[in-house]
């Protein structure tokens, strides 16, 4: 006997977490032991190792902050452990998140009488792959058998769309959480919700408002009382923690009140005596303090709208999500900045959890593992949308051949709706045992259909499973990937697997070549295949998110340089990645992705990087002055303006704030990419000259040896290249330049002597080959082929020789030591 499906959604937040259960009809919020729908994402471990979670843990955050920890979501995916000195225990961020998930799971058991095995957990849209992987691990540790991850803005959008029939056109979800900011542009049409695009900042949230208040308070204390406290000093950390807590409370209070007081007894000691703080903060000051962060969120929104050709005034509305979004200052500035109305009546604190629960229905992820098989029934394997905006979706099925089945196979099947008011026509089973059944759904409710089968002689056949349930309502199209993902190559290039915006889930395989051998049995011999995330053509500008490693200890036989590797990357709907490398020569598969961690951010290295950035800025600025390049100067000023905040984060990192260190690392990477763009722009005359010469060179080869479609493509590319020149777009120009070079190369290889020349050039470098014996044998083979005029063999030999020539050492270092090309 099966019970009706229940779908569980969880919002695992930075500050608070929430869970919701959807039964196909309505969403119910899960209440914790204290009766609240929000469970603080806080864990306490006392001296005896006892663990407290949620509100009960939060009570100790002021009195025993060292053993009461929150905001560990911001450390997800890093190797940084969180220590609890009283017990001497240390937990990974995912282990702490698992405790929060266990607590929510127990609340569901208490309220609904079942322990969920499956759930949908929300993650910020711009979570990097290691952070998503850590979230899945947290769920596994909490006892979930299967989870799907869902981007938070999609969850909010789904919940907002589900509760409102009238929504149509383009709209935004503005999700300002405790530690992250996400904005999504959506479109609703024919009951289908489409994510047009999204953007955000992984290190911008309510916490930044709190820090702005803390900095203001520190300045007040310094000015008024001469008390100098600093986030950079580890000794001041306890006082800073108390101030931050008071700042958070004041911020919440000012949502309703016009003014409040930051009252902190015994903040620190002054001349040996306790120092009490008493600072008045009004709403206008709070808004002034928070405005830079709010304006940063609006800049992200405008960037998103602009990239999709939408003016702010063209939006139908904005849905506000997340605790800080209830602040009057935030709401006013968003409404004014985006020139549209804000959605009312939605609970910004639980919308994500509600959407996650609805999405669980879309994904057919019933929270309980149910036995659907009917004893004695003829088994059928069914595929259908568990949730559909379509009123007449198909149910596709295939009979599972079973010699032991007591029943004879049916020749026809049909569906009968549980209300008895509709039945599908009988559908014949084809030669493959397949059938397609029609449905007719009643709007916005779960629809249960009984599956009936009959034999050719008219006798009925029991089918297993006996029923299917489809919920009719707003559904979401395949979510788009938020960041381009690829493999870093030894020449610092990137083999792109999935472009930003690609629908998820997705899977792709490319054949790569090793640039060096892997010696069997040697633990020193390690081939790395770095997986990177980012929109840049150079690997070093993208973020390393994992490395698939092939070690000499694992290989069955030594793997020579130039061997083929069939590398597959796969992403599920939540953006969770798995990688697989098949080495055909060894018939071996490698699947362990090592270092799926956000890289460490050492404050000393970060500071050195800031110094280097300053030098680059100075060089670029003097060059821009000479050229009178005003736009470049403006961009440089903007980059320079970001440095003080970056240095403040590094100072906080020196004081032990791991989160600030990660934020600084990300910011530096982004600044690096911007400086790289400006350097390209500085080299504009050289790049354009190179482009012009490449066009002349390629046009002549393509004109003489190109196929007709290559000649036409050459014309189009030359046009695109000229357009990029007119627009002074260095990145686009480089892209087109690469295409021109490829076309020229392809055509030039058709020249009767092309391969002879290429072979001779490769042969001249044979002394540098990674496998000299093999390379010399190839040279001998090539000379014989050249003498016979055997162009095919010559081409084959030359290509093999190329694989043995070393790649540039510096470029390999930049591309995360990639061992493939």
């Amino acid at each position, binding site marked *: 006997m099966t019970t009706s499906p229940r779908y569980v959604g969880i919002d695992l937040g930075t500050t608070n977490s929430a869970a919701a259960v959807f039964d196909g009809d309505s969403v119910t919020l899960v209440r914790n032991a204290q009766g609240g729908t929000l469970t603080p994402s806080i864990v306490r471990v006392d001296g005896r190792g006892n663990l407290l979670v949620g509100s009960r843990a939060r009570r100790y955050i002021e009195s025993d902050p060292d053993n009461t920890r929150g905001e560990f979501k911001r450390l997800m995916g890093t190797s940084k452990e969180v220590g609890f000195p009283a017990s001497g225990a240390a937990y990974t961020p995912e282990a702490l998140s698992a405790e929060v998930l266990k607590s929510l799971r127990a609340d569901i058991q208490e309220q609904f009488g079942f322990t969920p095995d499956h759930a949908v957990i929300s993650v910020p849209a711009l979570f990097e792959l290691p952070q998503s992987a850590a979230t899945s691990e947290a769920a596994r540790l909490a006892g979930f058998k299967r989870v799907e991850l869902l981007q938070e803005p999609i969850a909010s959008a789904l919940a907002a769309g589900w509760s409102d029939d009238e929504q149509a056109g383009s709209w935004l979800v503005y999700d300002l959480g405790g530690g992250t900011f996400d904005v999504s542009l959506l479109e609703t*049409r*024919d009951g*289908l919700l*489409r994510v*047009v695009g999204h953007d955000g900042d992984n290190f911008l949230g309510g916490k930044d408002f709190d820090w702005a208040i803390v900095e203001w308070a520190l300045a007040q204390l310094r000015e008024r009382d001469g008390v100098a406290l600093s986030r950079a000093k580890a000794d001041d950390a306890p006082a800073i923690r108390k101030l931050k807590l008071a700042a958070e409370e004041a911020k919440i209070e000012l949502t309703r009140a016009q003014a409040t007081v930051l009252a902190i007894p015994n903040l620190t000691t002054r001349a040996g005596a306790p120092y009490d703080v008493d600072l008045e903060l009004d709403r206008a000051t709070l808004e002034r303090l928070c405005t830079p962060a709010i304006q940063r969120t609006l800049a992200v929104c405008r960037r998103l709208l602009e990239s999709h050709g939408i003016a702010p005034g063209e939006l139908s509305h904005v849905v506000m999500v997340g605790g800080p979004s209830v602040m009057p200052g935030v709401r006013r500035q968003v409404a004014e900045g985006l020139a549209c109305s804000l959605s009312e009546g939605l609970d910004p604190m639980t919308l994500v959890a509600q959407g996650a629960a609805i999405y669980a229905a879309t994904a057919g992820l019933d929270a309980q593992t149910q036995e659907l098989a009917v004893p004695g029934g003829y088994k059928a*394997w069914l*595929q*259908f*949308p568990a949730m*559909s*905006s*379509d*009123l*007449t*979706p*198909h*149910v*596709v*099925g*295939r009979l599972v051949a079973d010699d032991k089945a007591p029943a004879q196979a049916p020749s026809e099947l049909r569906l009968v709706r549980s209300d008895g008011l*509709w039945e*599908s*026509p009988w*559908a014949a089973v*084809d030669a*493959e045992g*397949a*059938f*397609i*059944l*029609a*449905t*007719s759904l009643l709007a916005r409710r779960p629809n249960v259909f009984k599956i009936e089968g009959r034999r050719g002689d008219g006798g009925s056949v029991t089918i297993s499973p006996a029923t299917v349930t489809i919920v009719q309502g707003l559904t979401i*199209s*395949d979510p*788009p990937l938020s960041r381009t993902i690829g493999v870093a190559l030894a020449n610092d290039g990137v083999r792109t697997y999935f472009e930003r915006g*690609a*629908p998820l*889930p*997705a*899977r*792709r395989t490319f054949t790569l070549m090793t640039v060096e051998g892997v010696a069997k049995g040697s633990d020193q011999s390690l081939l790395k295949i770095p997986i990177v995330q980012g929109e840049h053509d150079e690997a070093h500008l993208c973020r390393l998110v994992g490395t698939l490693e092939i070690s000499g200890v694992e290989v069955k036989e030594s793997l020579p340089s130039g061997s083929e590797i069939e590398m597959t990357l796969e992403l599920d709907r939540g953006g969770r990645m798995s990688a697989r490398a098949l080495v055909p020569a060894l018939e071996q598969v490698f699947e362990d992705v090592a270092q799926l961690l956000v890289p460490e951010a050492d404050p000393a290295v970060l500071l050195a990087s800031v110094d280097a950035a300053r030098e680059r800025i100075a060089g670029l600025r003097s060059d821009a002055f000479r050229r009178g390049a005003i736009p470049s100067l403006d961009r440089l000023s903007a980059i320079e303006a970001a440095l003080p905040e970056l240095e403040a984060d590094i100072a906080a990192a020196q004081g032990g704030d791991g989160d600030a260190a990660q934020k600084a690392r990300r910011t530096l990477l982004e600044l690096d990419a911007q400086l790289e763009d400006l350097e390209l722009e500085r080299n504009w005359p050289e790049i354009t000259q190179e482009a012009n010469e490449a066009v002349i060179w390629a046009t002549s080869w393509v004109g003489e040896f190109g196929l007709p*479609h*290559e000649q*036409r*493509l050459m*014309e*189009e590319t030359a046009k695109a290249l000229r357009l990029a020149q007119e627009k002074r777009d260095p990145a686009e120009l480089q892209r087109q330049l690469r295409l021109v070079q490829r076309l020229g190369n392809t055509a030039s290889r058709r020249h009767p002597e092309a391969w002879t020349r290429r072979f001779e050039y490769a042969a001249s470098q044979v002394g540098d080959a990674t496998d000299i014996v093999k390379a010399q044998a190839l040279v001998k083979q090539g000379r014989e082929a050249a003498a016979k005029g055997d162009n095919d063999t010559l081409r084959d030999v030359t290509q093999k020789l190329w694989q043995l020539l070393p790649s540039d050492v510096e470029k390999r270092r930049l591309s995360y030591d990639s061992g493939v090309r």
Partner: protein
Amino acid sequence: MADAPRRFADNPFLVLGVRPEQPRVEIEREGQKLLGMLELGLRSAATYMTPSGPRARTQEAVRAALAELRAPEKRLMHELWASLPQAQASAGKADGAPGDPYRGDASQRAPDHTDTSATQPGFAGAFALFGWRRP
């Protein structure tokens, strides 16, 4: 036109085996049906026809095709390519997927409140509106 073979081969209408003038809801329905059939490993869904011959149909290709057609500006471009005579000919001999479950019994047809194909000409109709004639 240089990349015409690719534009035909990857054309979402051909991948999904639907006509350019079909409304969005029907295209989504067909896409979901194909995803189900591919998941079940049905041979009848495994290939589709293009002007340059049959091609393998994968779940990734179906998802990508659906995503392309959801974006109105992209759909318009694909409609143009799919409306060319070469593509139309391929669509005519599209995959051998098991047929419409309502085939042969129109009276049983379930209500489809969103079927607007009769009133919305789509891109194919736009040719005529602009006075173009197909060769």
